[in-house]
């Protein structure tokens, strides 16, 4: 079975490509005229900046408009370090390092507030751009000579001058040498990021981008990983800023301007928001065009043209120019001989094969006097529930009885207003969702929560890796689970393409792959056929051999077939508890929920 190219060792092809690019790039750097080398250096530097945005946004899902800020800070850091250190050390590679560190540090600081503050979506974009503009104001108002670090004057509106060129001892600090240095740095960064994305970190980053809450429910610390990605982005932008300051011997507050920040978005959109190489192509194309416009006209039309390009891109080619071209070329090729996934090779799910081997290690689940209020609304009022290890428990009750809220308290989406929850002997009442998942809690949500933009195999793989943390082991586990669920033939397809029933099985597969000790199933048979429901009864029995299972269900037939202890919620309290056959004879329950045959 194909689980796409995850590796523990660097890709040889990519390493070869990187080496070849370095050799050719460095060679060319010294052949072309110095003036051309000067121009091209800037394009490569901008490509690196675009790459940082592509990585953070396209792969990390953080719509950060602050890459220009990290770039600018990196530039100033290089300037300060270069002016103060280079006279002694006669090189500027240490200054470049300082630039990268400052970029990463600024990203860590801003990212901490943004990511750990729970700021999401558009607020991230606005706060990052606002921070960039605040830096613009700050650096613009540092004209007073009092603003200096060592011998380096910040210079206010006019910027910092006299920044030393990129210098490596033994190599000349010419324009051609600068281009060579820039190319080497860019290729190394590109290679490192591409490798990173092909490792578990990259795949989990993709998972977090696609469905943050599911990733958390699988036991991953999404905040830490997102922050790590943001810091890497800041590091690359800072590095690019350092190269920029060394390239131009100058850095001014204009790098923090809205125009500069918008360029980053334009390069990335031209090259495609996910493509690493596209970032460079986008920067080359846009800067090349600007250069051309500057020669043909007074240059005043450049912002106008760029604005129109950005507007048209968003309206008509939101996937980027390059990816659209590539997709249409591929589309032409593919039209000859498309193989549709065949319905014939449908395989019955076999829960026993998928999960039968897991050892029996269910945890007792205890809720003590759990209450939950939303504003003035009391949804749960003192729920006491105890489910023994490896037992199956069904929760029933009318809509609004508090079943879903109870599950949300169990997984840690909310914290109860009062009461305690235990998994085994561990009190989890205030634990974050990922910590509970690591204790062995898994949930199949009501609406399947999966990664629709990732392949079926990748979905299960991310779940499996959360436990073993070993690539090979996770691949073996997910192959095994997929085979058991009859999804092997669809492993390489995007999960979003699955049918409703298959999605339900896929999500259960993701729960299973974690080898859970407590499984919560929220209305698992909704929308299933009778036959599928019956298979689900088998699944619950298999799950119960190794885990404690709690099922919320409205399908009374299914509840009866489970033959498990039933707890009925009503109005935020436990209304009744017992076997289904006993509850069916309880007049109160018939009135509240089940209804009577003769009243229908």
């Amino acid at each position, binding site marked *: 079975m194909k689980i796409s190219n995850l590796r523990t060792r660097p890709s040889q092809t990519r390493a070869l490509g990187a080496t070849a690019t370095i050799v050719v790039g460095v060679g060319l750097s010294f052949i072309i005229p110095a003036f051309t080398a000067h121009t091209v250096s800037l394009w490569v530097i901008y490509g690196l900046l675009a790459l940082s945005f592509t990585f953070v946004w396209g792969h990390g899902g953080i*719509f950060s*408009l602050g890459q220009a800020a990290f770039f600018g800070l990196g530039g100033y850091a290089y300037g300060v370090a270069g002016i103060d250190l280079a006279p002694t050390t006669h090189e500027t590679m240490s200054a470049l390092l300082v630039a990268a560190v400052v970029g990463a540090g600024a990203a860590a600081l*801003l990212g901490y*507030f*943004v990511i*750990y*503050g*729970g*700021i*999401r*979506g*558009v*607020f991230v*974009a*606005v*706060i990052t*751009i*606002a*921070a*960039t*503009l*605040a830096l*613009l*104001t*700050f650096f613009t*108002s*540092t004209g007073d000579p009092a603003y200096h670090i060592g011998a380096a004057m910040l210079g206010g509106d006019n910027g910092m001058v006299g920044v030393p060129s990129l210098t490596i001892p033994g190599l000349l600090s010419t324009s051609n040498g600068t281009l060579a240095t820039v190319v080497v740095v860019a290729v190394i960064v590109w290679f490192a990021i591409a490798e990173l994305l092909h490792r578990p970190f990259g795949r989990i980053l993709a998972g977090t981008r696609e469905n943050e809450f599911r990733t958390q429910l699988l036991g991953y610390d999404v905040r830490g990983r997102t922050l790590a990605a943001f810091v890497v982005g800041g590091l690359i932008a800072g590095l690019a800023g350092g190269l920029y300051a060394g390239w131009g011997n100058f850095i001014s507050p204009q790098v923090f*301007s*809205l*125009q500069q920040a*918008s360029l980053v*978005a334009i390069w990335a*959109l031209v090259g495609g928001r996910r493509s690493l190489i596209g970032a460079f192509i986008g920067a080359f194309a846009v800067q090349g065009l600007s250069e051309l416009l500057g020669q043909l006209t007074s240059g*005043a*039309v*450049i*912002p*106008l*043209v*760029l*604005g*129109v*390009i*950005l*507007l*048209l*891109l*968003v*309206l008509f080619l*939101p996937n980027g120019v390059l990816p659209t071209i590539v997709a249409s070329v591929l589309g032409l090729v593919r039209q000859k001989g498309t193989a549709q996934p065949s319905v014939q090779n449908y395989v019955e799910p076999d829960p026993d094969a998928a999960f039968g081997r897991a050892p029996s290690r269910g945890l007792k689940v205890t809720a003590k006097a759990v209450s939950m209020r*939303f*504003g*003035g609304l009391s949804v749960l009022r003192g729920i006491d529930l105890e489910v023994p290890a490896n037992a199956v428990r069904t929760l029933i009750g009318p809509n609004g009885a508090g079943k879903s809220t109870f599950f949300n308290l169990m997984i840690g989406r909310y914290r109860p207003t009062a009461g305690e929850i235990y998994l085994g002997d561990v009190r989890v009442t205030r634990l974050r969702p990922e910590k509970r998942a690591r204790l062995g809690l898994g949930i199949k949500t009501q609406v399947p929560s999966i990664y629709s933009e990732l392949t079926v195999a990748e979905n299960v793989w991310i779940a499996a890796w959360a436990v073993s943390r070993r690539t090979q082991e996770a691949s073996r586990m997910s192959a095994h689970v997929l085979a058991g669920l009859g999804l092997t033939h669809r492993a390489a397809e995007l999960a979003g393409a699955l049918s409703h029933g298959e999605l339900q099985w896929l999500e259960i597969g993701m729960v299973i792959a974690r080898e859970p000790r407590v499984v919560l199933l929220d209305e698992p048979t909704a929308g299933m056929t009778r036959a599928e429901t019956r298979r689900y009864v088998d699944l619950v029995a298999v799950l119960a051999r190794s885990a404690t299972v709690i099922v919320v269900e409205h399908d009374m037939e299914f509840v009866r077939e489970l033959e498990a202890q039933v707890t009925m919620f009503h109005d935020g309290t436990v209304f009744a508890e017992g076997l289904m056959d006993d509850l069916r004879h309880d007049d109160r329950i018939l009135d509240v929920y089940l209804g009577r045959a003769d009243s229908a």
Partner: protein
Amino acid sequence: MKVDQFIVIMVSLLSSVSLLVIVSLGLALAFGMMGVINMAHGEFLMLGAYFTITAVNAGIVLPVAILISAIAMGGLGMVIERIVLRQLYGRIWATMLATWGLSLLIVGVVQLVFGTSSNGIPTPLSTIHLGGYMLSQYSLVLIALAGVLIATTYLVFARTPYGTMARAAASLPEMAAAVGINVSRVNMITFGIASALAGLGGGLLAPLSGVSPTFGQGYIGDAFMTVVVGGASPLLGASTASLLLGGIYAGVSNIVSPVAGTLALLLVSMLVLRFLPTGLTGLWRKARQ
């Protein structure tokens, strides 16, 4: 502290607050009611300022010139909603990038038409002498107008049929459409009002400083901060955030320096968001529970 000094400090504080209200109200409205972050908001301010200057130079008195700018920007906003924003609802990054493109486009056009140099009109009204201090009457007018703007916007959205429809369309577009509200028209009007507020703001700011194509950039950062710190409720958010941030900026600027004021503003914003990711409005919602 003497009475005159106290009054001067209060006026400078309220003046910072009123500036934030004036530059951020339109942005807050478009975000709160339509989920649109208008990256061209600064350029809308700048256009409003240019319209006002052009009108004043053509012999129109300032208040009328400002009103004309507001109306012109309102019309332009509606056109932009029709042509651009309409295609992008629900894709928030796409709206941001598209309006960003618009922002570059406007800067480009203004540079071609008016040139890059700074234009200006004198600050109207004179100054009052208060003890040993001078107070600009115009800044007093701005403080009063900021209050009037908030009150008027509140009345429009709370008390008129359009306001009710707009709030319905903002909270549940499908449901609003289902009960017969023309959501697309309501959105067009809302963005028109937001743009008119930006035009008005630009017009009011025009006499305070020179107006150049980068005019908007000086205000847009503060406007963004105000909106994120304020949160989703446009009026309450914008006004409370303006009070907080304006107060801090003016306080730190007076005591230390304007640069420190800018940094304090950024720092306080980040601290607020660290603990209230949905802004000050989120605090208000929490308190109500």
